[in-house]
């Protein structure tokens, strides 16, 4: 499955939507640390994961995909995890409509 730069921006927008307080001023790049620089705690990571599911209309539990959110340190880690999950979802036959995020 191919991913373009729009996909990365989608994920960064998703991250930005969950940031609050003083962390909103941080400029997000691939190397930005999710917890240290953006203040995203474990609840925030879970919210991100579930919003990602909504955005792409997939159900990771049904797909048997288990994300270890403790391993996701940077924005790039999250983007890569998102790509891996969607590639697997695609292989499992999830619809393109869902994968392009058009349901949001």
């Amino acid at each position, binding site marked *: 499955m191919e991913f373009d730069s729009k996909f990365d921006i989608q994920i960064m927008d998703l991250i930005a939507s969950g940031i609050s307080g003083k962390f909103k001023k941080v400029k997000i790049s691939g190397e930005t640390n999710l917890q240290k620089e953006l*203040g995203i705690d474990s*609840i*925030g990571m879970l919210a991100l994961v579930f919003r990602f599911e909504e955005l792409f209309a997939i159900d990771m539990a049904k797909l048997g995909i288990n994300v270890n959110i403790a391993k996701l340190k940077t924005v790039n880690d999250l983007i890569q995890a998102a790509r891996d999950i969607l590639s697997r979802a695609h292989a499992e036959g999830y619809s393109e409509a869902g994968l392009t995020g058009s349901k949001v």
Partner: protein
Amino acid sequence: MKIIDCHCHIASEEYIPLSFVEGSVANMAAALSAQGLPDRTKTLTAMFLNRMQDPLGDSLVLEMDAAGIAKSLLLIADFSYRLKDCKLTIEESFVRHREVLKRHPGRFEVFGGVDPRWGVDGISLFERSLTEFGFRGLKIYPPCGFSPSDPILFPYYELCAAHRVPVLAHIGPTSPVLDFSVSSPFLLDEAARRFPSVNFILAHGAVSFVEECVMMCRYRPNVYLDISGYQATLGYDPSATAVKQILSQGINHKVLFGTDFPVFRLQGEQKDFLQPLLRENGAMEELSEKEKSMVLHENVERLLENAVSVVAA
């Protein structure tokens, strides 16, 4: 620098019952629901339980190695009297922990916990844990429904005095299936006064009832605190100010490093939790080398060194 983690648990459903986990997950679900997300209780529970599959402590040892943690204290919290969905009896839990102790020589110490309402059998089991199993302390979990100064616990404290081992008491909130009303550090005061030769550790003293915990440590010679649970603050405060504040109170001879593994396993690994303390500008930066040593290992070593040593049989 040598590091000893004074507050860990084995990550296994054998020791932490599903009802306890579900209670904790309910708080996460409430936070996510407030953000407009649908109910994901089942998914959250599955994610949490997925990180609780280390009954022999092998993954914990790997994380300790990666973090530079030489030794961890494994605490057995006895939920089996209060929560009826425990998979093991407390005696079976003790036996399994002894196996972990033998499997990883030199990497762990164990504090056995017994709900005092188990009566003489519980007292006997705790004594055996000190004389036969090689355990080095008592863990009490008041939110299961008893005060830490309830006379029912005095036989345990007498054993701790006789064997010169410390008591670690849970302080503050926990899973909502348990009682918070008996989690105040001041409830331990009478026990600390009646048993001056027993050292008491207030668990989570950097994040729960902080002012009271500091007061107890400052004015009761036999009361200490551990900082475990500070990871809960790292989301909104990545520089671990909670720890920095505790370390600026003039009680660093009473403060013990701890993580409460595996409670924060969804958030990171052991090395991730050391970083906010030890990095440049971290919470421990302003401490002298001696103070760092005390917090990271010397204080807990001092509490353990007088114990009557028994090799796990």
